[in-house]
Each structure stands twice: as C-alpha cells, then as structure tokens.
C-alpha cells in the first residue's frame, strides 16, 4: 500500500532534500519503519527511545491528527498522505 509522506524541513537532510517521499505500509507504524529502512536514522527523529511518537511531533493521516485516531496503529490506506509536522503552539 503506497503512501505519500510529507517531510518537514528539519528532516529533509535524510531524504536528500525531498519534500515528499513514497513508502509502503498499512499502518503509521509500518510507514515509519518503511521510512527508516529507506532513510536510515529518520525513525529515531520521529520516535522516542521507547518507540512512541515524540512529544512535539504532530502526525496526520490525510486530515486526521493520529492522536484522535489510533496513534501509531492508525491505518494508512493506499493513496493516503502522512504529514509529519513539528508541534507549534500557535496562538
């Protein structure tokens, strides 16, 4: 299941500057693992030492914040877009 990942500026050193990459995965966890297999080291930027999403990373599958869905278990259907965004307070 091919998924598009939008890569934040601070992770583009891993993707050789690419703003979007394509990986395979049925869930967000699979997608992160797939990213790390293709771009070694990127997974540790997104996940903490215990394998959870870092506190200041927001991840969306299409328009859904995965914290309102199933976190790393959130399904990533074929054709969906995963956006990884640094949390910013806004306001």
């Amino acid at each position: 299941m091919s998924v598009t990942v939008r890569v934040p500026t601070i992770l583009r050193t891993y993707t050789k500057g690419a703003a979007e990459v394509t990986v395979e995965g049925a869930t967000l966890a699979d997608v992160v693992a797939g990213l790390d297999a293709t771009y070694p080291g990127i997974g540790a930027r997104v996940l903490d030492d215990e394998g959870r999403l870092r506190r200041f990373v927001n991840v969306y599958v299409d328009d859904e914040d995965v914290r309102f869905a199933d976190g790393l278990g959130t399904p990533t259907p074929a054709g969906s877009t995963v956006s990884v965004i640094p949390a910013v307070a806004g306001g």
Partner: protein
Amino acid sequence: MPALDATDVAPTPGRGASPRRFGSATALVCRECGATYDLSARYACEECFGPLEVAYDHPPVRRADIEAGPPSLWRYADLLPVPPDPADRPTDLAPGWTRLHRADRLAAELGMRRLWVKDDSGNPTHSFKDRVVAVALTAARTLGLSTVACASTGNLANAVAAAAARAGLRSVVLVPADLEAGKIVSTAAYGGTLVAVEGSYDDVNRLCSEVAFDRADWGFVNVTLRPFYAEGSKTVGYEVAEQLGWRLPDQVVVPVASGSLLTKVDKAWRELGSAGLVEPTPYRVFGAQATGCAPVSRAFAAGLDVVAPVRPATIAKSLAIGNPADGPYALDVARRTGGAVGDVPDEEIVEGIRLLARTEGIFAETAGGVTVAVLRRLLESGQLDPDAETVVLNTGDGLKTLDAVVDVVGPTATIRPSYESFQEVGL
C-alpha cells in the same frame, strides 16, 4: 551547530544573522534537549522536535534605564531579542505600557483584599498580540524576510495586518472562516492578504506549518518566528512588576490558549528577580480556560504532564486552541508555583464579561470573561487566596466579540420620544 561569535556585527544574508543584530540574545536553545542553534527563522529542534527558545547574555540592566525609556514595550528592549540600535527597529505601533487598573469594586464583589486588572485592550489593535508582533516583525526585518504571515484566532490577525501596514511589509493572514465578523472585518481593513480557511484554528495552524516548509522568505510570526514572537509576551510581566513599584504580586490569573503567555509572565518575573530588579518573592500562577476547550485544565486536574488535544467548542474563540504545544510548560509553571489551571462554561464566560464591565467599566472580550470567571471559581474552591494581592490579565477588547453578549445585554427600555413615555418605564 557552529559556535557563535558575539563580536561579529556584520549582518548575515539569508535566514540567519549575527547575534548582535538581536541585542543580548545569543542563540536559540531547545527546551527539551538543550541543543543550540544560531538566531534564525527556525522553531523546532532538529534532534527531538522540541520548541526553541531565545537564550541571552544580558548586560546589567538598571531600573533607572528602563524608567527613562519610552512609554511602550521598547522600554524593556535590553531584555528582548531586538537590535541594540532603536533605528534598526521598524516604525511600529509601539504597543505596551498599558494601564494596571486597581479593581476595588470587583474585589469587593468577590470578597478580595486587593485586585488589579492588567488591561491590554489598550494596545493599538486592542489586544496583547500587538506585543508579540512588535518583536516578531523586528526579527523578520532583521532576518531580511519579505512577508509576514500568521495563523490566527483573530487578535493576532488584527495585530499582524496593522503592524505590517505600518512597517510597509506584505502580510498574509490565515484565520478560521467562522471567526467573529468583527475580527474578520477589522483585519481586512488594513489591506493585507486575508485567507479564511474552512476549518478550526488547529487546522489553520497545521496548514501554516506546512506552508512554512516551502516559504523560506516568509516569516510566520507564530510558527517560524515563534521563539522571537513569544518573547514579546514577557513585557506583560515586566510592566506589572514595574507598575506595582518594582515588586511582584502574590497571585496572577492568565488566560490560556497556547499556554505561551502564562509561561512568559513567569519567565519575566524570574528574569527580573535574577537581574536584581525586583525582590524575588514567591508568586502563584493560575491558568484560565473555557470548558469547551480545556486541554490544559483537564491535564492539570488529572495530574498529567502531557496535554491530550481536544476539538474546541466555545464562544471564547481567541482561546480555542485544542492542541496547545506550550501546554506542558504551562502545567509545569502552575504546579511549580503552587497555582492551578481552571475552566468555566460559556454561560459563566458571559457572566464574567458582564461582571468586569459593571464593576470596573472594562469591557473585555471573551478571553477576559474566561479569566474573571475562573478567578471567581478559584476563589470559591479555595484554591486562590482572597487576601493575597492578585493580578488578572485582560488580553483583549469586548468590541471584538460582541456576538458573545449581543443576546444578553441591550436597551433597558425602548420608548417613544416623549416625557410621558420616559416616565411610563419607571425612570
């Protein structure tokens, strides 16, 4: 990161600039892991995604120097990440130095001994956002950025559009399409680009974050320029201390949206204590949210140090941030100082607006209603000491959120233009 050379005063082209261009600011530091970066339009740590904050090497600052400064936030320029030469700062609207109003009638109504309202509705676009924008726009100009932009719940939209107009910069402001009409109109009037987004504030914020990836020459004041922007909020804390005669109050109640203002008031008071400008007396910091968007209050009540996002549903739209990234830091401050974070339903927000208006003649926007209503709740629950000197922050003007009260206040009577008619209604 390369070491910083504080003696290098030549401007650096592009997104970075030498430290002296930012006064006594020396670097951006990750609040989570401590990684350091040069002063530039970046906001997230490359190691851990943590938020970046401005670090300083302040020269000694004296009360007399501040008191001799202008009647605006620029009197605290030595404590902000701005150019040392005032001529390098944009010709802005000089916000700040708003009144600290002794609220004796409200205090009497609530059974308090001494209460003050720091009334930031007196800023140029009638909210505290003029403060953060003044600092962010200065940073944008110093960094050579061509456009200033923001995601906004309304007050920031006003402030960015007005300050950009004044400074002759292009502005692009993105807001939720369902904002109060007053905030839409009063932004559009300044002539910048205004984009209404069909979504919540959190959707708008996310969109801006993504757009910012590919707009290196734009300064998103509350995204890419956030470390500079947020420092502007410290000036509320500086002013309260100076206006009290260079001392700190015992308690403060601060409205919480992102959580940034609350953390920066605390930072300001700690800085003043460290600099010897005030006696570092203990104080307690309380946060105020609307029940319809209370992620920080819920986390406080549950004893959590992480803030689960919520989908906002409240009339207090300027506080309707369901995913407040500074929430954990606001929790830290409330707990460290012995304060609390509370929330109130929309009906009490309206009552809070009316209470402040009828006792003190201050017409606050919904965020001010939240603060006054939470103050009352905290007194009732015994969490806030009625005998301790207390400051509450009113962050915006009620004229911006007329929708909130239009159904509950209005003419006492409608009469014919005759004396008889006047008497008929008991007047």
